[in-house]
């Protein structure tokens, strides 16, 4: 993600890109039992 801050005088420069925290989910259930 990136962020821009705003006040009454305008927008900041855009931040650098943030960290890449992987999204992990539980695996699908086994099939063909």
């Amino acid at each position, binding site marked *: *993600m*990136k*962020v*821009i*801050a*705003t*006040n*009454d*005088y*305008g*927008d*900041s*420069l*855009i*931040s*650098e*890109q*943030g*960290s*890449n*925290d*992987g*999204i*992990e989910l539980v695996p699908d259930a086994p099939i063909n039992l």
Partner: protein
Amino acid sequence: MELSDCDASETIIRDAHSCSVQVSILINEPFSLTWGSSVVAKVVAYNLYGDSLISESGNGAVIITYADAPVNLKETISARTASSISFSWTSGFNNGGSSVTDYRVSYDGATGIYSELASGVTTTHYTATGLTAGKTYKFKVQAQNGFGFSEYSEEVAILCATSPEKPNTPSTTVVTDYVVFNWDAPVDNGSPITSYHVFIRKADLSFIEDPTVCDG
């Protein structure tokens, strides 16, 4: 035209062969001289036997006064920074008969007392530096010509502020079923931060702002 204020028949004037007339009389009717114009006189001498021929014209001293105060004092918005304020002004309508040579800038840094910030400014704009973000400063300007300094211009009050600093690199953390986005509040540069724009990277690696997901 003879001057009632310079009645050369009076003994004291006759003997001194000199008299003086207030400039304010000469700039009004019937003389109607304008500031910067020359004052020229001729003299006729009288005695019991009659009038002399009229003299040649004199040297023509120039009458001048203070210039009008500068006007239209306003901030140069495009030049805003967190530690400086730029502003400009326009010369007053009348220069008092003498060209304006320079300007004197005074300021009040919220103390209630004006002090001189710069003199000998030969342009009609100025940048005050070394200021504190978030503080309101007042400025006023005088014009100088050959006669002296004009009245002060109208003052202008300007908040030293600009857009926020660039935010530090934000972080993302996965917490069970949520992704948490964190960032530090950047320096606001004199004006409170009113909102953020949050951009999240898509699968195609481009960034998109979606206020329905994260409205900063």
